[in-house]
């Protein structure tokens, strides 16, 4: 039901208390977007605007011996070719750690690589020209002399003593480790009648927003103010961080977030090339625009979910799950991402494994290691796909081992619908879940028995049909508990008292949420 008021003088149904709840209300920005009248950062132009293209390291790990840009600088239309040392004069490095992830470490990261490139795709020079095409032409004739260094690529050997340490100051390649031991895991495995182990391997993904990352930074040297137009999920965070690293007051930085062509968590981080764009505007005293191209997006947007997880489950012949144990390993590239860090995903895997089931016996080790690959961090459904695949894979393997139907083993172990409130072994608090009601409904909807008998019949004709069941708890939005935690500031860090709501469409109808606030 769509409700609109034909006459704004008269109160509509939506003007009554709580009247938005459960109603479909019109999204205010659809007409604009459907008529090609949206305003994405990619669409924006400002007077004297320069376009930046980044020259990126072709090596996973290399020392930068020399950069010769003399020929590129002579190309008509080229405004500047800037290196890491040049840019360090206007922007300070950062370290992607948060205080609530104890022991997490990372090394100082620069907007443009200085002396050394640590992954294939790290920007080593910025070429600014009056069009992107000219900047790309110029980038092709910048000559960089590299000395290739040994690269750490395999997360399984990253912690070996013979592997090179990517950041000597850190002592090793271990960014973060979390150990969790709840209940009586050893006793539970000892009492198990069957124990099943498996390795789960997940490849890197990325979010692939249809509009690539885009930023337009406009430093006005006369007013000493920076205006950043950016497709971002966290404009207040951008304001705070840009000010911090450009040595400005928050009040000197304004962040404008217009339409955003998809985010999915890809645009909740601040990338080195975006920092470089803010800094270039300050250095060159003019608006600078960066829009990643598609290949650049695949190579430099955060990757996610590169995990190798050893899992173990103990079970009785009656189907009782006795314990879960995991040893999760993930490689995050050479730096923990800024500012929300690259330890969140593994942390969430440790939080979520075993979630829907009754057993209180759970042990987890999660290790996060550095490697010479593109940065990895969390995006949509942080950690959930890993945790769900591992948990449900183990439950299926246990069911197969004891010869029990995969639905039956779940029915015997899911937390009872009358058990709430309760908490998982990792400490997640659950309220009013209904796994059994949901499972029963699903069995009816899919006609589980009918599908099983059809599956058996088809098998005789050599047609192999699969039926998969997974239980799953999705962590809902913890609001400020996530966005303000551990020093990840979102607003008013200077103690001033103001509340400004400035979000735009990213992917999930933010305009509608604003209309309801």
């Amino acid at each position: 039901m769509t409700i609109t008021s034909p006459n704004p003088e008269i109160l509509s149904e939506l003007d009554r208390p709580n009247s938005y709840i459960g109603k479909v209300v019109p999204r205010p920005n659809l007409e604009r977007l459907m008529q090609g009248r949206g305003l994405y950062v990619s669409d924006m132009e400002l007077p004297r605007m320069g376009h930046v293209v980044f020259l990126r390291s072709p090596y996973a790990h290399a020392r930068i011996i020399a950069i010769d840009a003399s020929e590129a600088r002579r190309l008509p239309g080229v405004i500047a070719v800037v290196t890491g040392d040049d840019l360090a004069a206007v922007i300070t490095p950062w370290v992607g750690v948060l205080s609530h992830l104890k022991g997490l470490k990372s090394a100082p990261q620069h907007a443009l690589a200085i002396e050394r490139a640590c992954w294939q795709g790290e920007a080593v020079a910025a070429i600014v020209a009056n069009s992107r095409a000219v900047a790309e032409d110029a980038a092709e004739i910048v000559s960089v002399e590299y000395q290739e260094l040994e690269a750490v690529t395999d997360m399984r050997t990253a912690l070996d003593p013979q592997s090179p340490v990517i950041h000597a100051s850190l002592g090793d390649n271990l960014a973060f480790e979390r150990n969790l031991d709840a209940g009586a895991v050893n006793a539970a495995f000892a009492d198990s009648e069957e124990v099943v182990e498996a390795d789960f391997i997940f490849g890197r993904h990325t979010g692939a927003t249809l509009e690539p990352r885009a930023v337009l930074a406009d430093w006005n040297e006369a007013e000493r103010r920076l205006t950043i137009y950016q497709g971002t999920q966290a404009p207040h965070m951008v304001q705070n961080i840009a000010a911090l690293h450009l040595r400005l007051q928050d009040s000197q930085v304004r962040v404008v977030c217009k339409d955003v062509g998809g985010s999915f968590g890809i645009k909740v981080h601040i990338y080195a090339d975006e920092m470089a764009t803010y800094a270039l505007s300050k250095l060159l005293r003019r608006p600078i625009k960066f829009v990643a191209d598609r290949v650049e997006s695949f190579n430099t947007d955060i990757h996610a979910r590169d995990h190798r997880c050893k899992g173990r489950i103990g079970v009785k012949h009656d189907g009782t799950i006795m314990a879960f144990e995991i040893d999760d390993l993930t490689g995050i590239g050479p730096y923990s991402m800024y500012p929300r860090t690259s330890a969140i995903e593994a942390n969430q895997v440790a939080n979520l494994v075993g979630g829907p089931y009754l057993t209180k016996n759970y042990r987890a080790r999660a290790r996060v290691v550095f490697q010479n690959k593109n940065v990895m961090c969390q995006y949509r459904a942080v950690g959930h796909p890993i945790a769900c695949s591992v948990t449900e894979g183990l439950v299926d393997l246990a069911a197969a081992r004891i010869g029990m139907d995969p639905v039956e083993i779940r029915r015997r172990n899911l937390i009872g619908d009358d058990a709430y409130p309760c908490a998982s072994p990792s400490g997640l608090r659950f309220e009013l879940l209904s796994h059994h009601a949901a499972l029963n409904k699903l069995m009816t909807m899919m006609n589980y028995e009918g599908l099983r008998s059809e599956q058996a019949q088809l098998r005789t004709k050599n047609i192999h049909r699969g039926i998969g069941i997974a239980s799953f708890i999705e962590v809902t939005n913890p609001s400020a508990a996530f966005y303000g935690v551990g020093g990840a500031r979102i607003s008013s860090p200077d103690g001033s008292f103001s509340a400004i709501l400035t979000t735009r469409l990213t992917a999930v109808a933010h305009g509608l949420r604003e209309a309801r606030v």
Partner: protein
Amino acid sequence: MTGPVAIALDINGERVDAHVLPRLNLADFLREHLKLTGTHVGCEHGFCGACTVRVNGDIVRSCLILAVQLHGASVQTIEGLSDSGEIADLQAVFRDRNALQCGYCTPGMLMAAQDLLKQQPEPDRERIREHLSGNYCRCTGYQSIIDAVETTARMRAGHRP
């Protein structure tokens, strides 16, 4: 690289004279020279469909065709189709079905959908899926888009939605 080449063409019913570099593609010509930014650039490889426009009646990827090839051509973009009212009904159903979220794919999606609806009065869902298979949407999951195109087809054929 050779210098600019003169072209004259019709864009959304307006005569346009321009000098363009031979390497300039139509998407960049529309966006950067004519400021018709409703045509979006998603991949610049012809995969994503965000840059779909109509050239001489056929839909094309504007990132895969050069501006110099279009001397004498007639080009229509999302701005043209919107202002003429040609797809007003399709847009209304997209709105009612919430067939867009971030909106970045939407202009290309509308161009491709209108192309199908002009070719075939009442396409079934499979046909709609096939015709839109070159237009990526990362937000919606497509169901609402297919619903909107199917509903528009039925309305145009005089049925109730």
